């Protein structure tokens, strides 16, 4: 029967009218974008609004920084170096960022114990040379730094909540504390010299065989930011970091 070829046609031919649906969608979109505007932003002439806590290049509050070096240690791409900087005639230690390697993760701002390292909304960083991309301590400053540009990394501990202190937030990187093995200590005082927050205080713990006083470090837990500088500098590995959490 020749009419059997008609079976190959769709039974409900009106369903083919679905082709009109995308045309309706595009027409609506066209009217909308013509009356208002397309989503495209004409970038060099107009810019998107960005929030304060936008993670652009890192910035530095020079006066607030204590030069502890946590940012240098935490940086995943190792783009931060601690360099000597001049602060009113005094030589201090401040971070310097090589933005050619920076991946804008904001870890330096997160881990900064005094929130001197901030994230800035600056993302137009193209330069002609590699040297221009090395941002020294002064160049890292961001004049209009706001509160929102600091990144706080604080957690509410379960143990605190169980204890009833529900309002207490802990920056967990700073609750680890240095611990002294007094037998190994040779009283060289390097830890006290290197501590950025003056949390190490040397005290006399008796006399040795020759009658000279033995000096041991004592750590002020309120001031310590756990930068591990004392541990690094100790010649006899007498200081270790005790993980509190």
């Amino acid at each position, binding site marked *: 029967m020749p009419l059997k070829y008609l079976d*190959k*046609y769709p039974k409900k031919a009106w369903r083919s009218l679905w*082709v009109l649906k*995308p*045309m309706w*969608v*595009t*027409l609506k*979109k*066209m009217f909308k*974008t*013509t009356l208002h505007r*397309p*989503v*495209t932003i*004409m970038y060099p002439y107009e810019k998107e609004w960005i929030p304060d806590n936008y993670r652009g290049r890192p910035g530095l509050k020079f006066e607030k920084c204590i030069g502890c070096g946590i940012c240098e240690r935490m940086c995943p791409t190792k783009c931060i170096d601690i360099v000597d900087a001049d602060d009113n005639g005094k030589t201090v230690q401040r971070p310097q960022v090589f933005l050619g390697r920076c991946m804008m993760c904001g870890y330096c701002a997160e881990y900064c114990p005094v929130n001197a390292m901030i994230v800035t909304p600056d993302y137009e960083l193209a330069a002609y040379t590699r040297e221009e991309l090395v941002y020294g301590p002064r160049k890292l400053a961001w004049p209009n730094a706001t509160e929102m540009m600091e990144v706080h990394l604080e957690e509410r501990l379960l143990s605190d909540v169980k204890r009833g202190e529900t309002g207490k937030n802990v920056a967990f990187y700073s609750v680890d504390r240095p611990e002294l093995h007094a037998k190994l200590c040779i009283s060289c005082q390097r830890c006290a010299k290197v501590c950025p927050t003056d949390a190490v205080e040397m005290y006399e713990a008796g006399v040795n065989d020759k009658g000279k006083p033995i000096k041991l470090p004592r750590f002020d837990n309120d001031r310590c930011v756990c930068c591990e500088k004392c541990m690094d500098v100790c010649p006899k590995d007498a200081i270790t970091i005790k993980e509190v959490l």
Partner: protein
Amino acid sequence: MGYSSILDWVKFNDPMLNEFYAYKVYNLPYDIGYKLWELIGGALAWLINLIFPGNGFSVTLISSDLLSNFFAIVFMVVVIFAVAFLINLTMIWEERKVLGRMMDRRATRIGPLGYLQNLADGLKTFLKENITPDKADKKGYMWALTLVIGTSVLLACMIPLSHRWFIVDYNTGLLLIFGLFAIAPFMILVAGWAQNNKYSLLGGMRAAAQMISYEVPILLVFASVALMAGSFNINDIVNMQAETMWFIIPQILGFLVFIVAAIAEAERIPFDLPEAEAELVEGWQTEYSGMKWGLIMLGDYFRGYVACALIVILFLGGWYLPFFDVGMQQDWLPEIVFLLKVFLVFFVFIWVRAAHCRVRTDQILNIGWKVLLPLSVINLVIAAVITYGGWL
């Protein structure tokens, strides 16, 4: 003989009084060409007369019917091609703008309203290296390209913009246009073969299969329109529509068939199987580089323009508006009306392109042979019944 003003040489004679005037009716591009020659040739003759006063040559140059006619025809052809080219550029611009808005993005930005983007693209393709593949068949490679582009441009120039804007008022106009339209698939097949490249060969095969299968419904729709108008002359078809009604009303079926088939014939997006950027690199155009490729794209848009113009001529009343007196409209600007209609139809093409994704190979052939062909036959029957029933 003293000094003669240049105004004595540029007289702006009536071209219809020329002994060699080839048309029976007024022809606007010929008139423009004639006046252009009067300006340029008159200035030239005045200059020669200034240097060699009283010579016979400058008088012959401007007032001889033969020379004036020759140069007028040269300028007329240039004017017609320039207008077709401008229309083409405007259509590309329209496509970019409308497509951009439909995709929720900005479109071209170069020049006023982004109009100069096409020229920038042309310049860019000019600067590209012109490569001919080593293994390609050089003659087939170049001849196929030349014929594809040449027929497309010729077609675009042969479309009359109004009752006074035409090259030849020929009685078999529709057939001639269709014949030129149908040359391209064979040349595309030759081009695909001559490039010695898998992708272009596949693209050429697909193009030939698709275009040949879509030419059948197009030809049937042509036949039904010609049947209704009683003529293959484009002018007669448009006049018939002005006298009775637009053919879209009795032949809505044929209109729908034609619009789908024309999109397929112009290789535009829902049916751009021959190009198929994702699968076939650039289809049969793969090995054409630099300005050759630019000219192919230009030729594609020329064919798109021809398809839109044919839709306007066959179904949308050509250069006349309904509800207005025909004699009155001839004094307005029928070319502008025609072009506005063409851009409107091209808007539909762009709209379809923005809305739909590419159709599969087997689906394309199914649509062509199983849906459009029966529909166009039905349309032909309807047209015959209406015409011979005397209901038009």
